[in-house]
C-alpha cells in the first residue's frame, strides 16, 4: 500500500506533532485574544514609526498595533516559521538519513517499494505535518477576527499557505542533504544554517541597502516577508515556493537513488 510508510512515520511522530500543534494553537490564540488589550496602545507604534530598523526586524510595515502589524510581529514573522521549521527540518533530516543511521529504514527499503515511492511517501508525511500546523494556526487567526483582528480571510489563508510551503521547502532541503550525505547531523546543520541565513536576509533587506537584491533568494521573502498578510499571497510568490519545492524534490530523488543504505 502506498500510504503505509506515511502512516508509519505519522504514528512515530504523532506525539511530537500533537505537542507542537497544540502549543502553537495555544500561543496563537493567546496572541489574537490579547489584541484588544493592545490595539490602542499608541506607544508601541513608536517602535516602528518612520520605517525604523525595529519595524524591519519585526517584519512590520506600518503600525505595530494594526491587525497585520500585530500578527506579523507576534506570530507570523517569527514564532510560527520557527516552529514550522523545527518540525519540517527535523523530520526531513530524520526521515531518510536519520532512519538509515539508526537502521530502522531497512524495515522499509527491503520491502517491495521503489525508492521514488519511499521518497514520495516521506514527502507526503512532511507536507501533512506542515499543513496541519498551518491550518490550526490559520483557524486561530480566523478566530481572531472576533477579537478585532479584522483581516481578510483570503489573506490569512494565503499567508498560511506560504508558511506551509516554506516549511515543506526547507524540509525537502533537509531530505535532499540527508539523501546526499546519509547524515542526519549534516542535514540538520546545513538546512538550519540556510534557513537562518534566509531569515536574516529577508528581515534585514529592508534596512540594509546592499542586502536588498539578495532578498529574492530568501524563501522567507516569498512566503511571509513581502507583505503577504496585508496584500495576500501572490501567485508569483506561491509559484516560486512551489517551483523551489519541485526542484528540491527532484534533487532529493536523484540523491536518494544514489545513496548506499544500511
Amino acid at each position: 500500500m502506498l500510504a503505509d510508510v506515511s502512516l508509519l512515520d505519522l504514528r512515530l511522530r504523532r506525539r511530537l506533532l500533537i505537542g507542537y500543534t497544540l502549543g502553537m494553537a495555544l500561543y496563537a490564540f493567546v496572541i489574537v485574544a490579547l489584541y484588544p488589550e493592545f490595539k490602542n496602545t499608541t506607544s508601541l507604534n513608536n517602535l516602528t514609526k518612520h520605517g525604523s530598523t525595529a519595524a524591519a526586524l519585526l517584519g512590520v510595515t506600518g503600525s505595530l498595533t494594526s491587525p497585520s502589524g500585530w500578527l506579523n510581529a507576534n506570530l507570523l514573522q517569527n514564532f510560527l516559521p520557527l516552529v514550522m521549521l523545527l518540525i519540517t527540518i527535523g523530520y526531513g533530516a530524520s526521515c531518510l538519513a536519520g532512519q538509515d543511521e539508526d537502521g530502522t529504514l531497512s524495515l522499509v527499503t527491503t520491502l517491495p517499494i521503489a525508492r521514488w515511492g519511499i521518497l514520495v511517501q516521506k514527502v507526503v508525511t512532511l507536507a501533512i505535518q506542515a499543513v496541519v500546523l498551518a491550518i490550526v494556526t490559520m483557524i486561530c487567526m480566523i478566530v481572531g477576527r472576533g477579537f478585532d483582528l479584522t483581516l481578510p480571510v483570503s489573506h490569512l489563508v494565503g499567508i498560511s499557505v506560504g508558511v506551509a510551503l516554506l516549511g515543506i521547502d526547507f524540509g525537502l532541503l533537509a531530505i535532499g542533504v540527508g539523501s546526499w550525505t546519509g547524515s542526519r547531523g549534516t542535514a540538520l546543520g546545513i538546512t538550519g544554517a540556510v534557513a537562518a541565513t534566509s531569515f536574516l536576509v529577508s528581515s534585514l533587506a529592508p534596512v540594509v541597502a546592499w542586502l536588498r537584491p539578495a532578498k529574492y533568494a530568501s524563501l522567507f521573502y516569498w512566503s511571509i516577508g513581502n507583505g503577504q498578510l496585508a496584500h495576500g499571497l501572490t501567485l508569483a510568490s506561491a509559484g516560486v515556493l512551489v517551483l523551489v519545492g519541485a526542484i528540491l524534490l527532484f534533487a532529493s530523488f536523484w540523491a536518494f537513488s544514489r545513496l548506499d543504505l544500511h
Partner: protein
Amino acid sequence: MTAVITADSLTKTFGGQRGVEILQFEVTKGEVFGFLGPNGSGKSTTIRLLLGLYHPTSGKTTVFGKDPMHDAPAILRHTGYLPGELALHPRLTGRQHIDFVADTRGLKDRRLQDALVDRFEVILDHPTRTLSKGNRQKIGIVLAFMHRPELLILDEPTSGLDPLMQNEFQKLVRETVSEERTVFLSSHELDEVQRIVDRVAIIKEGKLIVTDSVDGLRKAAPRTIEFRFPTYVDPQLFAAIAGVRVLDADGGHITLSLHGPVAPVLRAAADLDPIDVIARPADLDELFLTYYRDDSPDDSSSRGPSTKQSHAR
C-alpha cells in the same frame, strides 16, 4: 539447476576502504548457501549488494535474473530478509511491526504469520524497546518468513536466540528448502552452518577464498595423525613429506596434519617403530579456522586444507 543469485566480479569499495572484491558465486534454487566469514569480512556488504541497498563499484549481481539496482521491488517481493543487527522502532510493538510489513506487502493470508508467531513464541504486544535481543530477533524471523518468500537472505539469523529456538529455526530453514525455496545464510557460527547448509562460501577480508559443498570441504579438510615413538624423533622427517604439517612435536610424541595420501607418512613412521598411532577424521571447524587465520590459505602444501581456491559454480 536454476541460479537464484549470481555474483560476477562483484566489487564494492567505500572511498579507499575495502568492502568486497571480485566476488564470483552462484546460489541455486532450493539450496541453503552458507556465507561464512569472521566479523568485518564483507558478509553484510555482500548482502546489501544483493538487496540493492548498495551500489556495486564494479561487476554485477542478479537475483531471480534481475539487477537489484534497477528491479529491487520485483526482487524484494519474493525475498525475505533478516538483518544481522535488526533495528526496530523502540516504541512500537512487535504486532505493529508485523502488521506494517504485512500491509505493505499486501499480505491477505495471515495463517503462516500466526503460525510463526506461535512457533517462536513471539511477544507481540510489548514495545520492542522492552524486549531482549532474542525476542526482537524472533520478530525479525516472522517478518522475514511470513510471506513465504522464494528466497531468504539471513544475516546472523540466530543471534541472541536460545538453543531451543536455534533448533526450531534450523528446522524452519530445512522446511523452507524442502519446498524448493532458497536460503542465503550468512554467519560466523560454524556449528550452525555445518548443520544446515548445502554449500559454503568462505569470505575473508572481502575476498572469497573457497566455495564448495560441505562434504567437499570435509573431504578437503586435513586429517590429524598422532604417533607415539619409543625415543625422540626428528619432526623434520615428517615435515619434509608433501601435504604434511607438524602440529606438535614433544620427544617421541608427534602430531601431524595431513592433506593427501597417507602411505608416505606410514612408510616413514614404520621405520621408526611406532608404539601407537591415532588418526582423527576431518574436522570442519579446524578447516574454517585454518582459513580464518591470518596467513594465506593458498599456502596449502604445508598447511593442508585446500590445494586451491575452488570458486565453484
